[in-house]
């Protein structure tokens, strides 16, 4: 279609929108936001006559590349260290994608402008595309990569794993609660506009550096749909801003969504990029450098700040604090160390770090070795079974952390941990912002204002609590992380396949002390004991070191 005919076609399909005369469509989702009904322009300008062939053409390229990768034996040069982390990433990501599809109807009745609904419906089908094309990539990995374990079980294991629930927020946050908070602010304004750059652009670049050019092919194709979704979000945001009564809610939701995305996405993608790579060229960008460019400069400075003049209250403090966490407080390193501490509760293998890795970390993050070096040396030392326990049950100067009740990443930057008694439970939070999210934001009133449509944080949010008192071998069997000989574990703290003596089995786990839920223990304490515990915990770290005994 010519440019002019596309414009004309787009104008024509505006005639499709109509207002009901006899019955209103069902209204199933609530919001505390208010919108003025006003004639709007469809921000997407997408006509299916050109959309379908365009997507089909993109598919041709993706599937052509997939065939080429297999014919060209791509897996002979793929780094296992990298592909193993894809077992986690590719179990997480199809769910947020499909949840984004499911989220679109939340906006139909709450944003009463039919001109926007066409774009939302196209986003819906885009997201079906993303979810299934990513599942397909995972299937290809399962079929062609040396170790299918973990890929073959991913959608069972993602749903019960020690890290998996963290990632699930990135999906569930889109589909429940206040419709605008979920489907507009959390999904489009923050997750898509800010964080898909690290997900779909930065991470694929790292994949390519590790011999995998299929992930970039698929994810760049996904990312090419993203600008449309960002336009959807922007149009809704501008409409919300037009009503001053919404400003307080927008400020609340931007704080929550920003902080939660930072906690969740930076934890996962930061770990994949920094600890999942073998590319240690000094001039390759670190996650912190990428973050500074994609998120701080492109999103914060160029996208958010200009909205301030329309009355958007921007959480400058939390944006600076997220950077502070990444740059000064070692957030990504703390998370990677935690994921590796519990390697046995995962369903992928985590490669030890080597001298070469140490050197790179020290160069990119000065002071890294003093903090984390010893622990990773211990990790390598304990990686093959040799009469000792997995690292979580060995004395390596690491205090097992408490979970953050809100973001479910543990309270890793020890000094930031806060506690609150909520709904009859003493909860720990990784940071004041996560306490605020639970105690103040997700409540039916906010700063004295009624917010009856606000969602709730629910569920059994500490993984450890479900297994309190269990033997580790039973935990791993219960979750189903066992290979087809009935005893070798899916997870291993090394990449040495083929030598069965080096493989950890359920038998090794039987001898370990039982799992203890930090939160259960905390709730058993007297208030004084808890205070003392808290005072001690916040003196711990970095790298999970317990507080010094004196001082």
């Amino acid at each position, binding site marked *: 279609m010519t440019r002019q005919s596309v414009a004309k076609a787009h104008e024509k399909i505006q005639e*499709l929108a109509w207002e009901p005369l006899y019955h209103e469509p069902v209204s199933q989702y609530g919001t505390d936001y208010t919108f003025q009904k006003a004639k709007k322009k469809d921000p997407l300008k997408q006509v*299916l006559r050109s959309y379908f062939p365009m*997507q089909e053409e993109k598919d041709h390229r993706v599937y052509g590349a997939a065939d080429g990768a297999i014919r060209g*034996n791509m897996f002979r040069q793929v780094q296992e260290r990298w592909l193993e982390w894809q077992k986690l990433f590719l179990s997480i990501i199809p769910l947020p994608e499909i949840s984004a599809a499911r989220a679109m109807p939340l906006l139909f009745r709450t944003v009463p402008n039919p001109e926007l609904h066409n774009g939302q419906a196209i986003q819906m089908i885009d997201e079906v595309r993303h979810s299934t094309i990513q599942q397909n990539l995972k299937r290809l990995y399962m079929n062609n990569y040396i170790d299918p374990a973990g890929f073959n079980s991913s959608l069972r294991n993602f749903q019960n794993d020690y890290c998996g629930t963290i990632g699930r927020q990135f999906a569930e946050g889109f589909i429940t609660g206040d419709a605008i908070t979920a489907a507009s602010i959390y999904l489009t304004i923050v997750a898509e506009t800010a964080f898909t750059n690290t997900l779909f652009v930065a991470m694929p670049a790292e994949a390519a550096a590790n011999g995998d050019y299929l992930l970039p092919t698929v994810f760049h194709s996904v990312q090419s749909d993203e600008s449309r979704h960002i336009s959807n979000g922007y149009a809704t945001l501008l409409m919300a801003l037009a009503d001053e009564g919404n400003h307080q809610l927008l400020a609340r939701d931007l704080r929550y969504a920003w902080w939660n995305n930072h906690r969740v996405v930076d934890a996962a993608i930061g770990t994949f990029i920094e600890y999942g790579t073998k590319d240690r060229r000094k001039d390759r960008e670190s996650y912190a450098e990428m973050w500074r460019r994609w998120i701080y400069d492109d999103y914060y400075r160029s996208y958010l700040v200009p909205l301030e003049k329309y009355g958007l209250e921007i959480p400058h403090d939390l944006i600076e604090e997220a950077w502070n966490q990444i740059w000064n407080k070692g957030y990504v390193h703390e998370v990677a160390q935690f994921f590796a501490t519990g390697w046995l509760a995962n369903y992928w293998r985590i490669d030890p770090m080597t001298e070469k890795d140490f050197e790179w970390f020290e160069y990119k993050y000065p002071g890294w070795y003093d903090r984390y070096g010893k622990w990773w040396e211990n990790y390598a030392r304990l990686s093959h079974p040799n009469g000792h326990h997995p690292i979580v049950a060995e004395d390596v100067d690491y205090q097992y952390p408490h979970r953050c009740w809100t973001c479910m990443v543990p309270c890793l930057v020890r000094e930031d941990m806060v506690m609150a008694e909520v709904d009859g439970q003493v909860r720990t939070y990784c940071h004041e912002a996560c306490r605020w999210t639970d105690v103040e934001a997700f409540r039916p009133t906010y700063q004295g204002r009624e917010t*009856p449509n606000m969602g709730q944080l629910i*569920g059994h949010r500490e993984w450890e609590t479900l297994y309190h008192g269990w033997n580790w071998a039973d935990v791993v069997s219960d979750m189903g992380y066992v290979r087809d000989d009935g005893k070798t574990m899916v997870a291993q703290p090394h990449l040495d396949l083929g030598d069965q003596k080096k493989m950890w089995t359920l038998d090794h786990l039987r001898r370990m002390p039982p799992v203890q839920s930090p939160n259960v223990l905390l709730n058993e304490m007297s208030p004084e004991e808890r205070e003392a515990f808290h005072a001690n915990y916040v003196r711990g770290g970095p790298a999970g070191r317990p507080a010094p005994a004196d001082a």
Partner: protein
Amino acid sequence: MTTAEAAPEATERSVPKPVFTDAEAGAKEFPDSKARRFNYFTPSKRKQSHYEDVTVEVQPDPRHYLAQGWLYGFSDGRGGYPLDWTVLKAWGGDRPEPERYPGSGGKGYDWPAHGWHEFRDPNEEWELTLYRYGANVVRQINQNVEIARQAKAFEQWNPNWVRFVERNVGAWMHVEHGLGLYLFANANRRAPTNMHNNAISVNSMHKIRFAQDLALYNLTLSEEIEGFDGKAHVDTWNEDPAWQGVRRVAEQLTAIDDWCEAIFAANVVFEPLVGELFRSHLVQHAAPGNGDFVTPTVVGAGEYDYAQRDLRYTKAMFQLLVDDKEFAQHNRQHLSAWLSTWVPRCLGAARELQPLWSQPDAKPPRFEEALDRAKSRFSGIVTELDLDVPKELNQ
């Protein structure tokens, strides 16, 4: 990612180096080295299909694997995809969610835990298939309309037929658009499995595409036919008494809360009694006699979407519920009640369309004859689902 700094020519460019890792399938033997299939669900046939691999279990369920439960709830504290968003039930659905407490472990019921997970879309739609199909349809329509334009095919239309197309064929785009968005796209948030919701979203796109096909065809006709009123479809939809019955029932369909009732009422009742009545028994039959060989190709694409794809998954979806090993009786009662509710509404809308039959110069087969055919098509679908044809059909 290479460095942006200009490097002196002699130095090597900084690029990652390929390394031989031998990480391909079969390079070594070890436990699970041959376990190359998704092991968390039972395929519906002997071998798992590609469609199942990319679809099943993406949307989790606390009854089997979702150990920690849903993490976010609505303001009433309910999260995820509540089973009671429809009154219909699938076996196992009444069992409580597994209880979780300190030391409970994370195991739920064995997969699938309940009958909803047994549904598979017989069209096996996922992204590859849906874009291939959509692209083929729009290419075909484009070509048909373009050839007709070049052949000056529209010049043969008599004035009454021009009016008929601009008003009535035009008005139908609003039905497709309204249902595509507010019934089908809306329902893609409601069903308890990914198999349901993906099939429903593909149905939604069929309708939205067909609506746009009709709008863009209307645009071409405004450019090609002298005096063709490209806005007449709006007035017809808003004011023509013959169309208000269809409009009323289409709006009423979007007002349904229960997602199963919405899909059932639309695809089992409305489509055969009103949709096919208009598209097949009026437009497709009247067009050739009035010198129009083009409109049937555009309308035919939408007809094919429904008859060959959307109805197909709908039947499979409800067949499972009608045959459910625990709740067949319960489901049949509700489905029968829905038939009794929606058949009269749709028949009413169908009858109000009757004046359209006398508008073209070359008349299509009589309205009563068309309606009889639509009714027998409807009865056939209902009988195939092993439900009783409602007595309201004969009113």
